[in-house]
């Protein structure tokens, strides 16, 4: 019998696996368990009462939860699509520039340096109905006479949050798509032009397929961290007015820390985790497919 000799990659990955198991997987198992109990922070003994799927059932019949869930999905769909489109536009604008590209690229990355919580605060300040930049500008330009209640009216608050979210994350798309545009060989574009393609056709059938993997990398990175919108919403409206901008994450935080209903909050948290995983796996597969399409090795 030979002794067990672990392989090199196993040993190299071991520290990562240990840390992630200790800080992510084990706590998540704990929270999975407590999602089956009526655990309250104020009553520790409730941790050992098993209630089966009661938390999940009461969530499923809770309309506030479903509104928050739907709103979260809506926000992510709107934000990710617009970020992708605006990022593509921005990258193409910058790529076209003949002079000062370095400066432009740095300016373009400006929002990436802002912590989400800063973004939230900054847009809360700008959208303030009384002293905010947006209303001041609109009133000075004579577009509106009354102050628009940006963060006070439900729909407007949702729009304001989407704008903040898009502002903060478009840069990631732009910078990665720009990397794709710069890495792209020039011959296919010239060949397409010689063959008589219109600029639109060249873009649609030559440039876009080449750039797509880069866009999916950006999507994957973003989807790894979609929950950062929590910071923005927490600061800008904290779920208000009257729960009209409540997202899954703010709802989880409120249920857990304000109401102290940990068991319920953990059950909700599992929905948010599944949502994040769904987004990531979706884009990860897209990325793999796009890579194969242009013949890259993985």
């Amino acid at each position: 019998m030979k002794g067990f000799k672990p392989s090199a990659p196993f040993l190299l990955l071991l520290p990562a696996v240990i840390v992630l198991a200790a800080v992510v997987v084990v706590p998540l198992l704990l929270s999975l368990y407590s999602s089956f109990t009526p655990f309250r922070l104020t009553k520790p003994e409730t941790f050992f009462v098993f209630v089966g799927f009661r938390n999940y059932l009461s969530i499923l019949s809770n309309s506030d939860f479903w509104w928050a869930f739907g709103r979260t999905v809506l926000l992510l769909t709107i934000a990710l699509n617009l970020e992708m489109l605006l990022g593509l536009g921005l990258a193409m604008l910058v790529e076209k520039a003949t002079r000062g590209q370095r400066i432009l690229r740095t300016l373009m990355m400006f929002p990436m340096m802002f912590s989400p919580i800063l973004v939230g605060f900054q847009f809360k300040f700008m959208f303030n109905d009384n002293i905010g930049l947006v209303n001041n500008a609109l009133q000075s330009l004579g577009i509106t006479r009354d102050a628009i209640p940006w963060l006070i009216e439900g729909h407007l608050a949702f729009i304001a949050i989407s704008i903040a979210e898009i502002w903060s994350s478009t840069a990631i798309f732009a910078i990665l798509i720009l990397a794709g545009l710069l890495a792209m060989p020039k011959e296919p574009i010239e060949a397409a032009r010689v063959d008589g393609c219109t600029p639109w056709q060249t873009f649609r059938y030559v440039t876009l397929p080449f750039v797509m993997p880069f866009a999916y990398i950006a999507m994957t990175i973003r989807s790894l961290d979609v929950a950062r919108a929590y910071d923005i919403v927490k600061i800008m409206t904290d779920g208000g007015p009257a729960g009209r901008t409540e997202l899954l994450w703010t709802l989880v935080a409120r249920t857990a820390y304000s109401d102290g209903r940990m068991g319920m909050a953990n059950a909700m948290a599992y929905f948010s985790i599944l949502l994040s995983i769904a987004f990531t796996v979706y884009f990860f597969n897209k990325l793999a497919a796009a890579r194969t399409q242009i013949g890259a090795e993985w």
Partner: protein
Amino acid sequence: MDENSSARLKRRLLGIVYRIGLFLAMLTICLPGLWIVLSSLRPTVEIMAKPPVWIPQEISFDAYVAMFSGIGKGGIPVIEYFRNSLIVSVTSTVIAVAIGMAGGYAFARYRFGGKSSVFLGLMLTRTVPGIALSLPLFFLYVRLGIIDTHFGLILAYVALNVPFTIWLIDGFFRQVPKDLAEAAQIDGCTRWQAFWQVEFPLAGPGIASAAIFAFLTCWNEFALASQLTRSVSAKTLPVGLLDYTAEFTIDWRGMCALAVVMIIPALTLTYIVQKHLVGGLTSGAVKG
């Protein structure tokens, strides 16, 4: 008008449209940040003024002075927050990069079964929303007595950063040709020596940028920090920002000043890192 000059006119018009578009785009990107910097330097009266005062009448550093002058004089313990942020971010970055280097090297250089599912599995741990993770961590940390400590926050941040540093560092090692390390081994280096003397220096700049990226993640993190810390001894800057909000009022100017303090290190580091970051994320996206 002959065809030539009309084409020229059209081209010039397009050029102008393009420049206006570029200018507007850049303005939208930069304005919110600049507005914060400007607001931190103006007296509160001007910020609150109705009708708005567009051009600042006087510039003062009062907000910064007040911020550093300590509790009770309109200040917050910003130096302590800064220290906490720095300790937590630097320590967890160093650990996360060390772990990420081992993992990234494994993904870049070895073939093993289930490689892409292991990779995806590691990435998925990153998708767990901070707030969802904070619930069990909060509970565990209270039990273990490491709530509101640097150690607890560092531990959480290491786990937060490891998946992403692995991704980035994997990309950087892929860019280093395999042949170089093999050549070094033929010349008598051990694999260990080949790594430190050939591959590590070549991937060095990339690893440095992975480190900066990890640092920025910690520096900016809020969802976990806001639940796992509660006193001056462990609160970080993003959590400290909330000190400026009271039940119904917000000290806008003070907040703007703290925002500027937070953003300056981030700005400098991102500027340094930008080129390598993109390279690391996209390597392997196309052939070559």
